């Protein structure tokens, strides 16, 4: 059997195992377990697409929360029934034609992705005129602007009240389906000639230009693809949480994604997947430090904010002492796995 057939079979096997696990949890899992699994998938989608820009292109984009927000609102507005919308928008009615449109969930997700991509395109001109710290601030600023707009444009977003009572369409199949698709597509992109051009820009933008790579075009490509998947993930999140408001997806969410991709290793998709899964699980597990603990004879009061302190410390420790994170810039692959196994058996 040649290696590419073997690898394809292994991948199919892995997906089958994943499907079986999801099936079992969807049927018999507790609400808590299902929530963690959904979070895992959505964080994987978000982290892998965020890493495309920050890890592979080497620029510091701090506005994924903006695209998540745009995706969430778009998708939510499209799945709500006209009657629900009329009930929700009490201060100012929702503008036509959004007020009468209702589409299937899948279509709304894609629409969320497209809306996010569209806004990413709009701001790409000021964003990519600058680099480094400036780019970071401009993208961060965009996140703030989106929040302000969501608050202010009541006839589109229902202002500070947000959108409530969305149908919980997001099942494990949806969240994991999107996650798998995202990982596959972004991996293919990164390993293609386009991905190589992005990495060249990360390594040395001047040299990349001299070799015929147009930085704007490739940064834009990464930025738009990333925004698309962030938008889709936003739609998934909206229909998981079922209530969205302008303050839901703040810079705080971006910060979490940043921790994930730094810990996973900037520029490693497998690293982002591993770290996102750890984060979704660890984030829940760490809730204990914030809730009161009863040890039988004594009750330790929970300390709010402690989780974020821990996360910040983790980020700083990784950046200061283990800058490569879990995976550095390398990837897990079947080839590597089998090579490692072979060495094991030989030894």
């Amino acid at each position, binding site marked *: 059997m040649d290696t590419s057939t073997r690898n394809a079979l292994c991948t199919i096997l892995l997906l089958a195992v994943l499907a079986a696990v999801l099936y079992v949890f969807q049927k018999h899992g507790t609400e808590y377990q299902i929530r963690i699994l959904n979070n895992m998938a959505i964080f994987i989608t978000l982290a892998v697409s965020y890493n495309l820009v920050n890890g592979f292109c080497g620029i510091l984009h701090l506005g994924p929360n903006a695209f998540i927000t745009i995706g969430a609102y778009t998708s939510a507005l499209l799945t709500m029934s006209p009657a629900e919308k009329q009930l929700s928008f009490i201060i100012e009615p929702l503008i036509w034609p959004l007020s009468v449109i209702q589409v299937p969930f899948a279509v709304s997700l894609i629409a969320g992705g497209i809306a996010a991509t569209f806004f990413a395109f709009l701001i790409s001109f000021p964003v990519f005129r600058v680099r480094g710290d400036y780019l970071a601030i401009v993208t961060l600023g965009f996140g703030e602007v989106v929040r302000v707009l969501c608050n202010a444009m009541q006839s589109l977003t229902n202002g500070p009240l947000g959108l409530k009572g969305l149908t919980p369409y997001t099942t494990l199949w949806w969240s994991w389906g999107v996650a798998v698709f995202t990982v596959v597509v972004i991996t293919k*992109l990164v390993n293609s000639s386009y991905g190589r051009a992005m*990495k*060249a820009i990360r*390594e*040395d933008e*001047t040299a990349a230009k001299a*070799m*015929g*790579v147009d930085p704007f075009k490739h940064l834009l490509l990464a930025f738009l693809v990333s925004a698309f998947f962030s938008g889709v993930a936003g739609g998934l999140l909206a229909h998981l949480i079922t209530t969205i408001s302008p303050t839901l997806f703040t810079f705080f969410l971006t910060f979490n994604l940043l921790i994930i991709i730094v810990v996973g290793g900037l520029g490693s998709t497998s690293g982002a997947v591993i770290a996102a899964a750890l984060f979704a699980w660890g984030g829940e597990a760490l809730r204990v430090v914030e809730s009161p603990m009863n040890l039988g004879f004594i009750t330790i009061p929970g300390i709010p904010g402690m989780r974020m302190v821990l996360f910040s410390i983790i980020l700083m420790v990784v950046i200061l002492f283990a800058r490569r994170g879990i995976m550095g*810039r390398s990837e897990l692959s079947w080839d590597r796995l089998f090579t490692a196994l072979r060495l094991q058996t030989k030894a």
Partner: protein
Amino acid sequence: MNDFFQLDNLVMQFGGLTAVKDFSIIIEPGELVGLIGPNGAGKTTVFNMITGFLTPTSGRVLWQGRDITGWPPHAVTAQGIARTFQNIRLFTDMTVLENVMVSFHHTIRSRFWKAMLGLPSHKREEKRIEKEARAFLEELHLGHLADEKAGSLPYGQQRRLEIARALAARPKLLLLDEPAAGMNPQETMELAKLVREIRDRRRLTVFLIEHDMKFVMGLCERIKVLDYGITIAEGSPSEIQRHPDVIKAYLGEPKHA
């Protein structure tokens, strides 16, 4: 009127400083031309103006009958002018093969979404690029290093890889900025041989900057001398060596005497 390559009265000012003044040259296909001058004379600035890294204050860059002044660097490269850098600028964390493959990227025809979906037509193109890149490395005697990280190569090899990478962009005109800098005499000699070989085999035109006089005099057919941005001499190696202004400029700069 030459319609291969011509620089027409290029001027570059940085604030009050005129780094290059009225620089003109006509280069014929297949020529090997040298550009020399003391440190800070404005040589690299000339290259930067040709390749679009700087937009000249005035003057024109004419290439194959077109005015390409102020075009962005990647567009200039796509038109067939490639360059190397004085201070090596490899993609250090990528392999030697990948470094070269980057230069092929502008020849790729399949769109990004084909790459994302992994369509067969795209895969074929990737295969072609890889094959050509490997052949390329063989030609420059770097084939055995294909899978090494570029940053881990010894200095001389890195210089060579810079040239390979520029050549992989399929230029008709190759600009080399101090290709022999930091090389020992042995390596310098091999480099001169390599440059002449490539020129002959690929029918390339080469315009190079170099401080190593032996290298320039031995390799170039025609030389231009810059001092403080002004062209002070032009001619064959033997003419340049005898030119009084050149001798003065270099004696005033003992570092390169």
